[in-house]
């Protein structure tokens, strides 16, 4: 799969992530960098929302079920005006709203507190059912990690979503093929992943999760089936944008980074 090089917006959002790592001293770098284009396209072109009215009832709901990818979400939310850009520099401080996992009620635009894995899809199913009961048009998007879907609760929720024909629900799997310990195919193989979601009653598509135009094209077609929930398998690269981190499990989470390492990261992501 050919992956276009990152454009200036993708590099800019990554620099915001690195800024948080720089000030906070630690964070889940790899899982955030695989997410950037998925979030960017959702917030640039797909989701309905009002940054100044984060609880606008008609907004689409977005749940980052892989809460450890929150650096990417903080960057996008700040870029969109949900919170001041300069607030990103408080990341990791004891009184900051921005912690290592996102919390509802603390940060505008965060729909659910996540961090423990396997919670987002059940919550998303509840939200999607709520919209259905009230015949409301909002859509619910849930991003899961790949290691995350080892959790049984994900598949309990998948069966329920299918039973209720929740076409207003889309799950996006950030399939970077690496979980904390190592390759997903070695730790707990997810394949055949497309067939797995299909067999659970989802309409499924695969996409290059770093290709902005492909993501935009695909998201325009949602729902893929008017009687089914959708699963989009986003093929991504953990640590995308930092050549020395890409595909390296040890970049799942980093702390005690030196000034040199921070500079090297910025150097990869210049304007």
């Amino acid at each position, binding site marked *: 799969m050919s992956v276009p090089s990152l454009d200036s917006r993708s590099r800019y959002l990554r620099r915001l992530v690195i800024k948080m790592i720089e000030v906070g001293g630690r964070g889940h770098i790899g899982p955030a960098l695989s997410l950037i284009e998925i979030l960017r396209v959702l917030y640039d072109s797909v989701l309905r929302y009002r940054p100044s009215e984060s609880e606008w009832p008609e907004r689409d709901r977005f749940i980052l079920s892989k809460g450890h990818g929150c650096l990417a979400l903080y960057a996008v939310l700040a870029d969109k005006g949900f919170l001041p850009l300069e607030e990103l520099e408080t990341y990791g401080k004891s009184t900051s709203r921005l912690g290592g996992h996102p*919390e*509802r*009620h603390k940060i505008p635009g965060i*729909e*659910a*507190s996540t*961090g*423990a894995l*396997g*919670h987002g*899809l*059940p*919550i*998303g*199913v*509840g*939200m*999607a*059912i*709520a*919209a*259905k*009961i*009230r015949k409301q048009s909002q859509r619910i998007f849930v991003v899961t990690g790949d290691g995350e879907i080892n959790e*049984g*609760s994900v598949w*309990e*929720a998948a*069966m*329920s979503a299918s*039973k209720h024909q929740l076409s207003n629900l889309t799950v996006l799997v950030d399939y970077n093929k690496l979980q904390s310990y190592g390759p997903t195919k070695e730790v707990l193989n997810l394949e055949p992943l497309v067939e797995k979601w299909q067999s659970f009653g989802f309409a499924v598509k695969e996409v290059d999760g770093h290709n902005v135009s492909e993501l935009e094209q695909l998201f325009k077609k949602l729902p893929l089936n008017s009687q089914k929930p959708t699963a989009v398998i986003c093929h991504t690269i953990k640590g995308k944008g930092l050549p020395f981190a890409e595909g390296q499990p040890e970049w799942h989470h980093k702390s005690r980074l030196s000034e040199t390492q921070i500079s090297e990261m910025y150097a990869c992501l210049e304007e």
Partner: protein
Amino acid sequence: MRRTALNSVYELAQTDDRIVFIGSDLGPGVLAEMKQAMPERFFMEGVSEQHIVGMAAGLAMEGFIPYVNTIATFLTRRCYEQVALDLCLQDLPVRLIANGGGVVYAPLGPTHLAVEDISLFRSLPNMTILSPCDAQEMGHLMQQTVDWSHPIYIRLAKGGDKIVSRADSKPEIGKAELLREPGNGLFVTTGVMAQLALEAAEQLEKDGIGCGVLHLHTVKPLDGESLSQWLPQARHIITVEEHTLIGGLGSALLEFCSDHLPAQTSKIRRVGIPDHFADRYGSQTSLWMHWGITVETLYQQMHRAITG
């Protein structure tokens, strides 16, 4: 009590369209009328407690008030993280109706005995724990669950339990009920233990020993005001619970007294379930007898404490 709780859900749902019911894989016909009358608010989701609690959280985030019902052990042990994070951390108004609190399911063995549920949930911030003594009290409390803005755990007893709450009382969530004025002795109970304590108190009265019963249908939040009023009036206090002695009602009382009424602490003795899994089947009452949770034991312990 169970029938009262579930019927209340349907009754409340008829006038409040925020109310939804979610079961796991309950017995056939549960809330059949509700299912027929309002199928869009009746959910039977299968054996998937982790999902069900998360789904309830999602509905609550959208303004609904979900009542979730299944067996107590599955609603506490199986999905503890979902209860802690989806419901309590985010402080959502989801109600967990737990069948078979305590050792109701004695014949089914330790997998089905909810003997540490109060302890588990008492340690969760924002959680409210209700353990009514009978169906009458359950009915009153269920009405108040609608507008309580936090998660609630509702511990059900076996059903067909003797009515011991006062017909004229109006129990309130968070407020203890004084079922009998204290004398030298005072039993402090939760759930159907009120029934045993009242009988023991009547026997003590025949011996000329005055003994009261303070019933805590709400174990959390603890009614500190009532405890501060009634505990100092008795010379000897025995807590009675169908629950492990670790972390339940007795522990809650001792913690409260240690913090706020230190002079009362030495008066308190506890009756409950010892720290091991049930090693026999039988019935709820036979397990109570096995562990010394009986009218006779309560009578003897209080008698001995008071008369020396």
